[in-house]
C-alpha cells in the first residue's frame, strides 16, 4: 500500500462507521479542496453512491466561482444538497466589518446550528485536518458537541483502537472528521492521483493564488506561480508559511480559532 492508500482506507473506514451508526447524518461541503476529497471518498466508500446529504453553509460572501462549482457537481453527481443561510443575521446587516469573529460566528456557526436543528442531525462529517492549526491538531475522529454546540476541548472522551464515540446524549451531536490524519500535501497528491475536480481558484493567475478558500472579504491570495497540481505540491513542500495564513479571521487574536471552535465553528 502507498501512503495515499493508507490514508484513503482509514478515511473510508471512518465514513462507513459514521454511516452505520448515525441515522441522522450530514456532510458539510464547503466546496474547498478538502471537502471535495471527502465527497470523493464517500463515493468510494459507498461504491459510487452518496447516501448522505451534503450541507453547504452559504454566508452570501463566498467567491462566486465556488457557488457555480457547487451547483454543477450537485447536479452531475446527483447529490442531496441542502443549503443553509443565516437569513436573519444577513437581513440585519451582518458582515465582517462588525468584527470577523462575530461575523464567522453568526454566518457560519449559527448558520450551521440552524440547519442542524431544522433537520435534527446527530452526526456531522467535516473535512478538517490536524495539520491546519493547533486546536485541530488535538481533535478526535468522533468529537462531541454539547447542546449549546460547544466543544469541551479540556475534557475529550478517550478514543482508542478505532472504537469511536457513537453513543451520546440527546441534544448533543458528534462531529466526524475522516480527513483528520491527512496533510495539505496529501490532499493535493490524492486530488492528482484520483483526478478529483476542484475550483480553479487554487491555481495561480497573475502571480497570485488561493491556498485556502473562504469568504471573499476575509480570504487573501498568496504570491504563487503554481498553475498545475505538481507545481502546487512542489510549492507546499518548500513553503514555511501556514495554510490558513490567508484566512483573516484566524489572525484576529492569538486564540481566535480556539474561541471560534469551542463555540461550534468547523
Amino acid at each position, binding site marked *: *500500500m*502507498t*501512503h495515499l*492508500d*493508507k490514508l484513503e*482506507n*482509514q478515511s*473510508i*473506514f471512518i465514513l*462507513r*462507521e459514521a*454511516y*452505520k451508526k448515525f441515522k441522522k447524518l450530514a456532510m458539510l461541503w464547503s466546496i474547498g479542496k478538502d471537502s471535495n476529497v471527502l465527497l470523493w471518498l464517500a*463515493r*468510494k*466508500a*459507498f*461504491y*459510487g*453512491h452518496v*447516501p448522505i446529504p451534503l450541507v453547504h453553509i452559504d454566508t452570501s460572501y463566498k467567491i462566486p466561482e465556488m457557488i457555480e462549482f457547487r451547483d454543477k457537481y450537485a447536479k452531475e453527481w446527483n447529490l442531496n444538497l441542502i443549503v443553509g443561510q443565516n437569513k436573519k443575521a444577513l437581513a440585519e446587516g451582518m458582515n465582517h466589518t462588525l468584527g470577523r469573529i462575530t461575523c464567522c460566528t453568526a454566518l457560519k456557526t449559527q448558520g450551521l446550528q440552524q440547519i442542524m436543528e431544522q433537520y435534527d442531525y446527530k452526526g456531522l462529517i467535516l473535512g478538517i485536518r*490536524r*495539520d491546519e*492549526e*493547533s*486546536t485541530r*491538531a*488535538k481533535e*478526535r475522529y468522533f468529537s462531541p458537541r454539547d447542546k449549546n454546540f460547544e466543544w469541551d*476541548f*479540556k475534557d*475529550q*472522551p*478517550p*478514543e*482508542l*483502537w478505532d*472504537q469511536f*464515540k457513537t*453513543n*451520546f*446524549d440527546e441534544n448533543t451531536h458528534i462531529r466526524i472528521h475522516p480527513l483528520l*490524519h491527512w*496533510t495539505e500535501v496529501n490532499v493535493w497528491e490524492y486530488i492528482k492521483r*484520483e483526478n478529483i475536480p476542484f475550483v480553479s481558484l487554487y491555481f495561480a493567475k497573475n502571480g497570485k493564488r488561493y491556498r485556502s478558500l473562504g469568504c471573499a472579504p476575509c480570504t487573501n491570495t498568496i504570491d504563487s506561480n503554481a498553475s498545475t497540481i505538481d507545481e502546487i505540491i512542489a510549492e507546499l513542500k518548500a*513553503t*514555511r*508559511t*501556514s495554510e490558513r*495564513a490567508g484566512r483573516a479571521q484566524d489572525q484576529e487574536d*492569538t*486564540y481566535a480559532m*480556539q474561541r471560534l471552535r469551542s463555540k461550534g465553528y468547523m
Partner: protein
Amino acid sequence: MTAAETEAASGTSTETLRFVMVGHVDHGKSTLVGKLLTETGFITETKIAHVKKVCEDQGKAFEFAFLLDGLEEERDQGITIDVAQMFFKTKRRNYVVIDAPGHKEFLKNMISGASSADVAFLMIDAEEGIQEQTKRHAYLLSLLGIRQIAVVMNKMDLVGYSEEVFNKTRDAYLGYLSTINVKPHSFIPISAYHGENVVKKSEKMPWYKGLSILETLDNFKSNDDRSKLPLRLPVQDVYKFDKRRIIAGRVESGTVSVGDEVLFLPSNKTVKVKTIEAWHAEEPRSVGPGISTGLTMEDQTFIERGDIGCDPARPAQVADHFTANLFWMGQKHLQKGGRYLLKLATQEVECLVQSIVKVINSSTLEEISRNAHEVAKNEVAEVILTTKKPIAFDTFDAVPETGRFVIVHEHDVRGGGIIQKTVQEYGAAI
C-alpha cells in the same frame, strides 16, 4: 512495479511510522517535539512568529512546547492537556508525532494518543529521575502492545551532562522495566531545549556512543506485517444501494481473494467470495491488511455487522466469557457484577463483570487487592467478563486487532482491555 515501489523509487517515501512521546509531567516531552520539528524544518515560520509573540507577551524565553500546546490554558499553565499530532519526514520515511500529556489527570488522553502509536519515546527528567507517570506510562505501553520503546533522559544540561547520573537512573529504570517485561530499544541522554542529541550527536556528551533522537527514529523497525496472520475481516455494514449486495469491512489481518471460502463468526456461516468491489479503480483479485473493502458472495447468506470473516482453517474463537487485562479510565469505578457495553471490532454486546481477579496500581505495580469488588480510575485489573451472547475474538497475542476491546459506560469509552485467555484455558492453567 507496484505503486508502492514506484513511490519508493521516486524518493517519496511510502512508509509512515507513528511515534508517541510519553513520560511524567514537565519532563520535557512537548519541548522535545517542538525542537525536533523546528530543527527538521517542519514548523512554519508563521507558527514560530506566533509563539515568539506569545512568549514575549508572557515575558518568557522561547518555549518550544508552545508549538504543540496551542490551547490558551495549556500555555498559561505550561502543561499539555490533550494529545497533539504533527507531521514530519526524513529521507527514510514519514512520521506522525503524537505528543501525549504527562499529567495524571489526563491519562485518558495519553492512552488515546498512545493506542494509535507504532513506537514510543519514554521521557525521564535527568534531575528529577523516575516518577509516578514514568512507570505508569511504561506499563500502559506494554499493555497497549507497543514493543519498540526508547527511553530518553532529558535535561542532561541540568546535571552537567554527567555520565554517572545517566547510568544510575538508567540502571534503576531498567530494573523496573524488566519486571513488566519491557526491553527498551535504547537509552538516549539529551537536552531537548539546547538540542543536544536531538538531531545530531552531542559534543557535550562524548561518553555516549549511541544514536540521536532522529537517528533512533530511523533505526526503529517497520510495523509488523499482518498479512501472514489468519484472515480477520470484521463486517461493518451490508450495502444494497443497487443490485449488488456488498459486505463492507476492513481486513484487519490476513488476505482474502476471489473464490475463497470465508467463515463468518459468531454466526457460523461459510460462503464463497464472488467479487471484490471497487469504485473508480480496477476490481482487485485479492485484498490484505488495512484495506477497507467490499465483497459480494456466491450465496445470499444473511451476514450482518459484527460478524468477523475468518480463514476457515484458522478461525477466531467463539465464547461468551474470557479473561482480560483491563485499564480503567472512568471517574466511576468499574463494579464487580456491573453490566457494561463491550465493543470488540464491530461487535457490540452487553457484558457482565463476573470477577475481578486482582487489581494493581498501574505505577507501582503493587497488587492492591485480590477478588476485588471494584476497579478505580487509572488502575489495571485482571477480570473475567461474561458476554450476553457468544462473540468472536482472538487472544491479543494471536491477532491484536481482534484481541482487544473497549468498555463503554454512560456513552463514553471508560476502559480498554486485551484478551488473555478463554476461561477454559484459564481454568486449565490453574
